[in-house]
């Protein structure tokens, strides 16, 4: 009995190793490690759901023929000094704060954030570096069928604050000529990056009303505004451009959310699109980041409706 146990254990052990081997995304092409530091063929991006599509478009195979993977495929084609290994760039969206956290914890290579990184957070990241890709803004948008759009094209910060805090309950409160239908306020999750930007720029210390609809993504927020005539929410500038004519953005304090105003910071509710990194970049990471901030990267950012940093 005892004798048979040993081969059984060995078999289980080998099975376990075989299973571990499967989890390696580079698969069987793993070269023999002869003492040299291994060439890292994967780059992981983690964070903001606003930025994730930008980086996926740039890295993964997509309809754009100018992306990094399709151009090169393996690292040695990017630079002859790199090893011949498949380029593997993983992008996952989980929110700006999660992105910053992942860099602090060292679980991702790059973090994506669509808000400013606080001094506190920077202090926790050794050798903090950031790449500013561009700017996005939150526009105060309603459905184009909302009659308020016919009455005015600008809302003051105070009006917005009253709408979002619940002081104005119906559209009648906003303008006496409108019917007394309930205002449907749509936000992202309170505590997320987008809401933080909005809270700082408009709400200050005021609380948002309790019965807002918390949309699980910016896409869902915009869909809600497009579907509901009584809805108001902070749709991102990029989303407004992608859905031209289906959303009606207001000026805030008379300032239009235009590319110039957003870039110069005159438009109040804007946020930077940042990629952050702990420590120095590996050569292959630098090659990819050079590509991201190149003209092609700017093109993608513009195509997705954001304001690139020129």
């Amino acid at each position: 009995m005892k004798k048979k146990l040993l081969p059984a254990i060995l078999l289980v052990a080998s099975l376990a190793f075989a299973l571990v081997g499967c989890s390696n995304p580079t698969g069987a092409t793993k070269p023999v490690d002869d003492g040299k530091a291994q060439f890292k063929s994967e780059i992981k991006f983690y964070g903001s759901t606003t930025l994730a599509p930008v980086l996926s478009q740039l890295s993964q195979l997509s309809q754009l023929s100018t992306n990094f993977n399709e151009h090169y495929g393996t690292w040695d084609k990017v630079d002859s000094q790199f090893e011949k290994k498949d380029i593997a760039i993983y992008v996952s969206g989980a929110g700006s704060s999660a992105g910053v956290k992942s860099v602090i914890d060292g679980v991702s290579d790059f973090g994506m954030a669509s808000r400013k990184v606080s001094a506190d957070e920077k202090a926790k990241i050794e050798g903090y570096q950031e790449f500013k890709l561009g700017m996005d803004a939150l526009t105060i948008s309603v459905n184009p069928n909302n009659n308020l759009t016919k009455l005015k094209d600008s809302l003051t910060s105070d009006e917005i604050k009253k709408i979002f805090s619940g002081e104005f309950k119906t559209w009648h409160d906003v303008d006496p000529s409108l019917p007394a239908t309930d205002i449907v306020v749509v936000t992202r999750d309170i505590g997320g990056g987008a809401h933080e930007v909005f809270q700082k720029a408009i709400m200050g210390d005021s609380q948002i009303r309790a019965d807002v609809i918390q949309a699980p993504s910016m896409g869902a927020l915009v869909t809600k505004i497009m579907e509901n005539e009584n809805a108001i929410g902070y749709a991102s500038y990029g989303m407004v451009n992608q859905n031209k004519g289906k959303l009606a953005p207001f000026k805030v304090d008379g300032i239009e959310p235009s590319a110039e105003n957003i870039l110069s910071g005159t438009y109040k509710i804007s946020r930077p699109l940042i990629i952050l990194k702990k420590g120095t970049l590996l050569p292959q990471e630098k090659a990819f980041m050079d590509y991201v901030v190149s003209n092609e990267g700017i093109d993608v950012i513009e195509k997705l409706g954001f304001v690139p940093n020129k």
Partner: protein
Amino acid sequence: MNQILEKLVSFLSRLFTALSAILLFLVIIFIARESLQIFREVNFFDFISGISWNPLAREPKAGILPMILGTVYVSIVAILISLPIGIGCALELAALENERLKSFCTSVLGVLAGIPSVIYGFIGLLVVVKFLEKNFLLAAGESILSGGIVLAVMVLPYIVSSAAETMEKSYKQYKEPSLALGVSKSYMLRALILPNAKGAILTAMILAFSRAMGETMAVMMVIGNSPILPQLLGKGETIPALIALEIGTAGLGSLHYHALFSAGFVLMMLLIFLNALLYLIKKNLTENLH
């Protein structure tokens, strides 16, 4: 050689069984460990009976009663809608003589169960929510009712498949005696098959209920996610939706983070309780049969 192989297989199967059992306990221990820390700051009773949720405010409040009620409310609405439909469907399937039609219906239900929940959520957002807005004159159609309707469709296959199985067995058993006595088919279904399937229906109900309570994405898309006390035509939030929405932004180790884990712990306890109930009912049923 054969003997060794047999020993090996039995050893491996035992090992993996143990592993999966241990996994459950590890999950419970992990969640309990992460969630217990909040009770240093908030009393447990306040946590489950508090009605305001604002863990990020200067004076953080973590009360998850609205979410507990929301979770239960949505699931009850879903069961109320899907149970009559599900039982009717199961009876029909059990009594269906046309084998080809029957296997077609069964596979349709199978496909229904396989549709990803985000698709249900999307359809719910565009169809159910829109419908409620138009016909109930609601400002926003996001409500407990819309969540219940979407969930009802999602749990329907579970109810049908677990009820139909038992009904089919008793249909086969009573078919010939009923025919011999000249009893009509509808009388047989009503007076024999349905009462006989009581236990199976109850099992199906609990199974569907626990499935409904854990559903995240579809519910999150149509329920509005407002942490307020739920009303049928008002917005609400469920525990899975709360966790999915906020865990990504909760600072590691913060009160917010632990509060979300505790909410998950409460949900898990509710589900374990339901499963225990299911087990007891099943045991009772099989004992009664013998």
